[in-house]
């Protein structure tokens, strides 16, 4: 790609990632939750692959490591639900963190933790979808 495009994209990746994290973190007050933020993270990573080439991105984010990250975050989500099972309420996904006032960041207990884990899971999975399509090579038969 052109040097102009590489410089411009390199300057804009940072603000888009910060916006994605803002959407995930404030998901219980403002519109957009884990799904939207995860799609934004994946969009940034796909943009990096398109502009900089697959060798550069694979040096920094190896595909098997991202696969392990997505599986571990899936297990973490189930673990958060199971902690609710053994605490006071005895049901899955019980809200065991005390809930504050209505407009603070740390209100509504378990929703914020689930949003963050869901954002990592969705972002990693959609990046893997694009990454495996890109590194595919024809069988030479």
């Amino acid at each position: 790609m052109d040097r102009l495009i590489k410089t411009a994209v390199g300057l804009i990746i940072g603000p888009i990632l910060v916006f994605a994290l803002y959407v995930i973190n404030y998901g219980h007050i403002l519109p957009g939750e884990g799904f939207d933020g995860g799609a934004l993270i994946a969009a940034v990573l796909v943009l990096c692959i398109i502009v900089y080439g697959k060798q550069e991105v694979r040096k920094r984010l190896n595909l098997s490591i991202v696969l392990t990250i997505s599986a571990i975050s899936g297990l973490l989500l189930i673990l958060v639900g199971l902690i609710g099972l053994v605490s006071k309420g005895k049901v899955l996904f019980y809200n065991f963190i005390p809930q504050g006032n209505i407009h603070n960041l740390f209100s509504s207990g378990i929703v914020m933790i689930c949003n963050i884990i869901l954002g990592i899971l969705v972002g990693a999975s959609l990046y893997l979808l694009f990454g495996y399509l890109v590194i595919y090579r024809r069988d030479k038969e």
Partner: protein
Amino acid sequence: MSIFLYSISILLMLLGLYCIIVKESLIKTIIGIKIMSYGICLFFILISYKIGAHAPIITENMSPETSFVDPIPHALMPAIMIIGLAAMGLMLATAIKLYEKYGTFDIDKIRQLRG
């Protein structure tokens, strides 16, 4: 006014269905599936509208009797769109391997199994 908007979403769904059925190339079938999916998402968002209502976000200094637009379809739509994205990724991967085995995207020529 609302009849016009609902008819746009039905038109998108029918356009997607036409693309799936009539077009020859496999890639155009996949694009038709995406168009039909967007039509259904638009239909869900149109259901949730009430006339003269506010967006469903609680801000400060709000009187207790403001009416809100129904927030449930807005929360369901990202989930449905990401499921559609995963299905489309699977279809594209299958289409790439099909091109490698058969040499064409034409669905009339990909017909080795009979009956």
